[in-house]
């Protein structure tokens, strides 16, 4: 894309992202009101945990005695100033709860994503080079298997194998409990804890990316510029890296953007299995406590993460591929 058009494209994307986030906030608001029962007790977290005075305070704060549009306005104003409410159960603001848990989730999803992308593209490239061989069929079988296996069950089976039977890796938490570690030992300890959850979350996407990159590489390999390069006498390795792989990566970037939401959804299950102290685990704890305020915060926060991730992939795409239309 011409650099002069980039700001306009960016602005368009930002507006779109803002609309999506606004829509999610409105969605959250109507969910509270669609739910059976008193909105105040839902905001507080149900099952009688909140006392009458707190409910009164909530009613005043959210303007529950006023018309719906006033309530929506109050709610919107709150969220836009990053006031995501208060968890009565944990006696902490929801925003600060989320903020505390965010790094762990980013570490987990980031590691899983990098693992899935690198291994998946490598496997897809190998399969594309050897179409019709057993290496190629392995990818198909792997993809079928991981498409059909529940994520949380893969996690449990890995725990069973690597933690219970072989006792190689920890199955619980993010760091060893009761041990004082310093410097590099801390990093190593976290990495050890990270391995199984990241593997669990990533395995499904390894299969997805392998299938996708195999298909796109075969498509690109058929095109004229690859034949030209071969006719020019460019070495095969260079053709693969510079001509085929580079062009095949574009659809994968797009796809990664589309799947960001699923990756984050999957992290809820993985964090639950491995007691990984991230946003997903927070969601599970909130579920157990029926703490809806926190759950809605998780929904808001994960949606913002997805929107931001999409924004980044859009940008990446526009920079990488000069043909992208500005209006797109």
């Amino acid at each position, binding site marked *: 894309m011409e650099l002069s058009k980039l700001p306009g494209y960016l602005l368009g994307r930002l507006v779109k992202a803002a609309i*999506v986030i606004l*829509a*999610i906030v409105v969605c959250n608001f109507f*969910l*509270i009101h*669609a*739910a*059976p029962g008193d909105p105040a007790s*839902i905001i507080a977290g149900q099952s009688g945990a909140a006392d009458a005075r707190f409910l009164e305070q909530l009613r005043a704060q959210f303007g529950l005695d006023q018309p719906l549009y006033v309530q929506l306005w109050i709610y919107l104003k709150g969220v836009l100033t990053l006031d995501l409410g208060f968890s009565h159960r944990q006696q902490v603001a929801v925003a600060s709860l989320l903020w505390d848990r965010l790094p762990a989730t980013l570490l987990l999803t980031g590691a899983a994503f990098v693992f899935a992308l690198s291994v998946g593209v490598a496997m897809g490239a190998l399969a594309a080079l050897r*179409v*019709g061989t057993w290496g190629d069929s392995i990818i198909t079988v792997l993809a*079928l*298997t991981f*498409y*059909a*296996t*529940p*994520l*949380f*069950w893969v996690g*449990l*089976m890995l*725990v*069973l194998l690597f933690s*219970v039977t072989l006792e190689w890796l920890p199955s619980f938490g993010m760091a060893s409990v009761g041990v004082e570690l310093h410097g590099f030992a801390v990093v190593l300890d976290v990495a050890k804890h990270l391995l199984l959850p990241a593997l669990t979350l990533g395995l499904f996407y390894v299969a997805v990316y392998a*299938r996708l990159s*195999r*298909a796109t590489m*075969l*498509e690109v390999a058929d095109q004229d510029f690859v034949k030209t390069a071969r006719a020019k006498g460019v070495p095969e390795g260079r053709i693969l890296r510079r001509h085929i792989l580079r062009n095949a990566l574009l659809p994968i970037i797009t796809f990664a953007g*589309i799947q960001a*939401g*699923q990756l*984050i*959804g*999957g992290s*809820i*299950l993985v964090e*639950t*299995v491995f007691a990984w102290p991230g946003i997903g685990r927070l*969601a*599970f704890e909130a*579920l*157990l406590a*029926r703490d*809806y305020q926190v*759950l*809605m915060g*998780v*929904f808001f926060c*994960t*949606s913002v993460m*997805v*929107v931001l991730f*999409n924004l980044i992939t859009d940008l990446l795409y526009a920079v990488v591929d000069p043909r992208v239309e500005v209006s797109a």
Partner: protein
Amino acid sequence: MKDFWRNFSRNRGAVVGLVVLVAVLILAVLAPVLYPGSPWDMAGMPFAPPGEEGMLLGTDSLGRDVAAGIAHGARVSLLVGAVSTVAALAIGVSLGAIAGYLGGLVDDLVMRFTEFFQTIPSFVLAILLVAIFTPSIASIVFAIAVVSWPPVARVVRAEFLSLRSREFVQASEVLGKSRLSIVVGDILPNALSPIVVLSSLMVASAILLESALSFLGLGDPNMMSWGFLIGSGRSVIRMAWWMSVFPGIAIFLTVLSLNLVGEGLSDALNPRLARNRGGKP
């Protein structure tokens, strides 16, 4: 129909898938005969390993028979998978048909709406919906339908876009047929095959979604389900591996067979595409 079967049975995986699927269906239907009584009742010693105490797949922490749980869970999984797919199809087909047939501003609006649902983390939304409307079969089906209609809408819209300017549609318009009867009577039957393929994949992902929800404790509290079995085995996996292993295998086999059947359907309904496939997917 004969052609259909020939093309379908050419895909060996699809035939295996169909056999497994029928077996799961039979298990679901026969569950009350094979394992009479409630799967929630105690049947033997707690934590009996598979094969002991006459329990084929062992018992759980409360002495409930895992095999009985799996048999009764098959009913819930298949039921939720089927009903929520029908619901998602209803939403997706109507929105996709409206967008594709009317085009213009309506199309734009519907597609933005669809994109919104594809952007947001759907599993988180499903959790939120089930939690707020209290866990029950109805709320689970509702939540799964709400998060899984967008692909249907996209496929149906694309089909309608390409079909609506065809001659047979124009002929119906000239004959003065109403819009509704053109959409339902002329265009929809011609758009059915991608919908059929998609729906078998949707049943599979609905079963996965239901198991994930009930794993998190959001299952219907009165219904035994596979996800619930795995969830209750999670904390005692060091003592009783069988509690989480077997229900997982049940989910895996069912979902795999549905995906295989989906591929077979796709081959059978688009024979041209299947033959071209050769090396490429």
